């Protein structure tokens, strides 16, 4: 690695990752420099999700590791002993493709799925992104303080990968972000 700024960022992230990898847990490593989301444990890559595109606001504030407050909502089937019939299990296809991940410290990650060939989904997703920006700008105009809006990250991944990520993440799971450098 020759770029000193990239090296600084990589070093910072490694310091954070070592803290996470020292404990028996799995964690999510979002690498914006390589456009990939990695599910990791003990520093080992367990699963890889390619990022198709991303955008961030206040990336300068994305320095710490973050703990997921709650996983995306899942519609679970309830077993009815009286009915006797077995309930359909949940699977990847039951997972949402567009959702927001909220964290214990102020960070918001919006996960979008690729909407190629589906203008309705595209409109819905862009509408959500617009609305979020409008509320952030509204807050900035109202308070005059640009730092009041929390850092946020929009990630676009494939349909299946969005579902896979929703499946994998659990409450309290740590997230780490490696920021991109110019």
């Amino acid at each position: 690695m020759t770029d000193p700024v990239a090296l600084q960022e990589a070093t910072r992230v490694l310091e954070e990752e070592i803290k996470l990898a020292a404990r028996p847990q799995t964690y999510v490593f979002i690498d914006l420099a390589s456009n990939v989301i990695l599910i990791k444990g003990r520093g080992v890559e367990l699963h890889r999700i390619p990022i198709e595109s991303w955008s961030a606001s206040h990336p300068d504030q994305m320095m710490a590791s973050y703990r997921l407050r709650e996983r995306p909502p899942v519609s679970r089937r309830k077993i009815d002993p009286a009915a006797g019939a077995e309930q359909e299990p949940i699977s990847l296809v039951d997972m949402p493709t567009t959702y927001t991940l909220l964290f214990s410290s102020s960070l918001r990650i919006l996960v979008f799925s690729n909407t190629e060939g589906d203008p309705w989904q595209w409109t819905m997703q862009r509408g959500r992104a617009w609305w979020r920006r409008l509320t952030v700008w509204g807050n900035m105009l109202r308070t005059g303080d640009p730092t009041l809006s929390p850092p946020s990250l929009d990630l676009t991944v494939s349909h299946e990968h969005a579902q896979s990520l929703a499946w994998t993440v659990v409450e309290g799971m740590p997230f780490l972000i490696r920021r991109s450098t110019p």
Partner: protein
Amino acid sequence: MKRVLLSLWYVVMSLFLVTLVQSSGLPLSDAVTDQPAPVDRAGSQTLHARYKTLVKQLTQLMPTQPYILVDTARNHLYIKRGDQVLLDAVASTGSGTILDKPGDSKGQWIFDTPRGEFAVQSRLTNPVWVKPDWAFIEEGLEVPKSQADRLESGVLGEYALGFGKGYFIHGTLYTRLLGKNVTHGCIRLNDDDLKSVYRLAKVGTPIMIF
């Protein structure tokens, strides 16, 4: 009024342009601002050395012995040593369904396979299933008072590896359901794969589940 409408139009158009840039796959410009201050040559060397030390530290945290990896979304169990895959087995993991606890308005069981890092805590041969309360309740049966009425042999296969809180890697009679999310949280394998896992895994072998 006209000026207000005009301002609104500018806001909407700028949002639209931002969205177009975003949907084109390009990161927005604000994503790459506020980078750390550049470092000088001596500082760069120190940083390089620090980086190498950290990479080494992280490598030392990686398992050196075989470890078990379970992909609950795709229902696969792997045994890996470093990057080498020693076993790739089709498994069955948690169904994600829920069952209400009778007499407890807020209590319920959620049949998920737990995610995270665990370790093999016990290795059993010819395990006997001690049926928990939910196994009776979901079938609409009375929960027995006697422990002896909970025992069922021959349903877990020849081996079972416990990894805490009543969760096991074990065999199954329902091999046609392998590859599906059908269990109450345990991880099921066919007989041959179970034998391989039993042979390769020791007490303390890490189990990473995602």
